């Protein structure tokens, strides 16, 4: 390393990334636009390969065809997307509100853990479609069955990762706040929760994408609106392009929700810098 001006070198280092053991990144430009670049490359390949591979547009339309369709159908897609979005958010919120207390109960009581885990796993793996007639029977055809499915499929990862997060906490930190006379309630909010946040958010990220799946399945089962319903419609009309346009919208919804959670995470958690 040449001996240069201190400040200059410091700035150079700042630009370079954080640690020397980190692979030198090719500048922030690549970093910032990497998602875009990769997406463009993949879509390009798809656009070019579909005709070459002799795939009929009835099986797989080209991205351009899908994009055009999306643009043309924006009002239709938007109407249905709102419905699905609402279901996903409501189901996910239920997952959070029930999953976290459940995780706490599991964390605190071994008997409860033993009793409840098999049931949770069973619930998680039950083919949701099998529950459809029951759900429709008890919850009707409105929001309820879709929200329930979104909830049912999404709360398990929240439970698991919250439990893992709570368990990984250093016992000494709990003792610290206890020694200050903290109630268990305070211990939770001052130490356990902040320390478990990275795990909990990891669970949220998985959960929110599952909630999308759940809501869409719910719409297959009992809906007259929503992207899942639209997809079924398109399918039965052999409108593959609309089908894919819907699928892309559904995925887009998932990606959007993921990044909202990611953004919230960045705001509320303190990330220790992990040495790479």
């Amino acid at each position, binding site marked *: 390393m040449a001996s240069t001006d201190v400040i200059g070198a410091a700035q150079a280092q700042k630009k370079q990334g954080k640690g020397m053991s980190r692979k030198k990144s090719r500048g922030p430009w690549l970093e910032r636009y990497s998602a875009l670049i990769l997406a463009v490359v993949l879509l390009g390949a798809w656009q070019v390969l579909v005709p070459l591979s*002799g795939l*009929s547009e*009835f099986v797989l339309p080209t991205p351009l065809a899908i994009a055009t369709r999306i643009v043309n159908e924006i009002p239709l897609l938007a109407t249905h997307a709102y419905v699905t979005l609402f279901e996903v958010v409501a189901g996910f919120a239920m997952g959070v509100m029930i999953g976290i207390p459940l995780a706490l109960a599991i964390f605190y009581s071994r008997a409860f853990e033993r009793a409840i885990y098999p049931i949770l796993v069973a619930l998680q793996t039950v083919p949701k479609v099998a529950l459809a*007639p029951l759900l429709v*029977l008890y919850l009707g055809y409105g929001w309820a069955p879709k929200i329930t499915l979104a909830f049912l499929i999404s709360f398990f990862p929240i439970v698991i990762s919250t439990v893992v997060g709570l368990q990984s906490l250093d016992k000494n930190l709990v003792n610290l706040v206890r020694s200050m006379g903290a109630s268990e309630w305070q211990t939770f909010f001052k130490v356990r929760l902040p320390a478990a946040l990275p795990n909990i958010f990891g669970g949220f990220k998985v959960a929110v994408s599952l909630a999308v799946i759940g809501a869409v399945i719910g719409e297959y*089962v*009992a809906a*007259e609106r929503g992207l899942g319903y639209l997809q079924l*419609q398109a399918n039965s009309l*052999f409108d593959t392009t609309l089908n894919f346009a819907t699928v892309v919208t559904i995925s887009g919804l998932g990606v959007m929700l993921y990044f909202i959670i990611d953004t919230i995470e960045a705001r509320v958690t303190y990330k220790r810098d992990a040495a790479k």
Partner: protein
Amino acid sequence: SHSAMAEDVNVRFSWKLKGEYGFFYLGEQKGLYKDAGVTLKLGEGAGSQAALGSLIQGQEDAVILPGIFAISAIQKGMPVKIIALYQPESPIALISHPDKAVTTPKDLEGKTIAHAVGETGTSYLGAFCEINKIDCSKVSKVQMDSQSRVPQFLQKQVDVVSVYKTNDLPVLEDKTGTKFPTLDLTEFGLAVPGMAVVASDDGIAKKGPALRSFLAANAKAIEMTKADPAAATAALKAVWQAGPSDKVVQQQIEATAASIHSPAGTPIGHIDEKAIADAIKLIGSVEEIGDAKPMSSFYTNELLTQ
């Protein structure tokens, strides 16, 4: 020998095993396909969409599915053709509970009916109402997935549900021990093309002779099934592990046999141009399809042997 020059024919059903497919297995068991110079490979499927997809990609030579779906797909431009239509009318009936029996179209008014997206029985209810001069707005359709329809009906959440007389009804009556009041849609003028054999335009060009042999053997198998439903039952049951009782399977097979017919003087599977035209109208009554394609793009009778 035949087998030396036997040609593979891959056939995909649009759904899981059911009594309707019985004749294929009887034909296979009796060697009809082998004799016709065809090495038949039958496979279960998961919906018309997937089946048609693999057909146009050349993975299957023929698929067995409700003709109405094929017509809809062809109207959208899919390069396939119906090469045999065994059920000019899908054997669909609406069933109801005895205490709220629906046996005439008029009875439908004021009732609720289960409906699933893309389901044959109720999609064309509008047309049915029109034909029978009843007020469709008085029938409330309840949307649900196809798997839930019958349980919902049995739980009396809806008054009416549509079933296939060939497959569903025998099973249901056997299960519940009830004789449900029945409204046969075909009797009241609703002709939705049913079981059909569909091949791709490419496939017809390349494998015409094999398909012809296949259809010929089908015709024989159907005749044989009509003559001896018990044998068809046994043949189907041999591959259908999880199937219902022999009695029910035989009822399905008999009902199917009864539903297969063709206009006088034509071979089994003959496609009537009017049936296709009517079907296009039906489709047009529920969705925007634009101008109908020329009739020749929907079907061909060429592969049927007189």
